[in-house]
């Protein structure tokens, strides 16, 4: 596809929202508000990806980073009873500034030293991305436009590994958060036994936990 020129006004507006919301997410003492600010920050970054000509990354950002991550974060805030957060100490704010500001200045110097003339972003078509993602390196594919492309990425193996990593993370999260006696899986025999016991307890019998 042809390179295009993204609109500077849209970029500055979105960047302003992203930076303000990031500052709020990092400094707000109310963690529910911080999670909401995080959601807005990640939401506006989807606009940045759109401006860069990568609609797939924009959609992914909306679905996962702006949708699922802040909700999980709010779950974390409520489940760990940490509605409010303070600074570690007044000293740590100074240390944080001393680390973050030089990093910021250094990266600005680096960025401004590499002026890259009139380069323009090239939009990435969904079809091309999908073929690159789901085939082997060197395979050839005929696009719907009729042109033949040779796959340079070829990340089908990495794609499957990423899927396994997500599965392992989910199972691991369940096992780490599992607590015998308190967390029960609805379909396990012990859960059924506990339910029967609870019904008996409701009828006025002794709770099985009472003598423990």
């Amino acid at each position: 596809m042809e390179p295009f020129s993204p609109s500077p006004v849209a970029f500055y507006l979105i960047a302003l929202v992203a930076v303000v919301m990031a500052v709020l997410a990092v400094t707000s003492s109310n963690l529910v508000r911080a999670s909401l600010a995080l959601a807005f920050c990640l939401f506006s970054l989807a606009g940045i990806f759109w401006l860069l000509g990568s609609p797939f990354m924009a959609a992914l950002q909306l679905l996962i980073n702006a949708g699922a991550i802040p909700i999980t974060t709010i779950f974390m805030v409520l489940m760990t009873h940490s509605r409010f957060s303070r600074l570690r100490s007044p000293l740590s704010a100074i240390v944080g500034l001393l680390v973050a500001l030089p990093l910021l200045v250094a990266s600005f110097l680096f960025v401004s030293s590499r002026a890259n003339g009139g380069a323009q972003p090239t939009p990435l078509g969904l079809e091309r991305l999908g073929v690159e993602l789901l085939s082997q390196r060197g395979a050839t594919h005929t696009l719907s436009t009729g042109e033949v492309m040779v796959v340079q990425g070829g990340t089908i193996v990495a794609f499957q590994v990423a899927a396994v990593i997500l599965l392992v993370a989910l199972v691991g999260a369940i096992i780490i958060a599992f607590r015998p006696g308190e967390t029960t899986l609805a379909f396990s025999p012990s859960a059924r036994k506990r339910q029967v016991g609870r019904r008996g307890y409701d009828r006025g019998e002794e709770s099985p936990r009472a003598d423990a």
Partner: protein
Amino acid sequence: MLTLSHFLALAAVLFAIGLYGALTRRNLVAVLISVDIMLNAVLINLVAFARFTDNVQGDLLALFVVAIIAAKVAIGLALFLNVFRHNGRATVEVLSRMKQ
């Protein structure tokens, strides 16, 4: 006209903000929020370099980074829940006491 430097500068600002938060916040969930901001700054860098050089592998790498972010948040939820159950609060000090 927008150049690559604009996007890199935005990513640098977001990364610095996230780094400040990760160093100063006391609550573990707040630290995780800051790390999220840093990771998304890296995502901007990846996609910006990929699009300005028309290299599809940067986009693919960004896709995998998103998968890793999702896995990190799921594991983080479980870990912080356990830290909270054992100590009654989920703060950085609790984790530094584990060294002893």
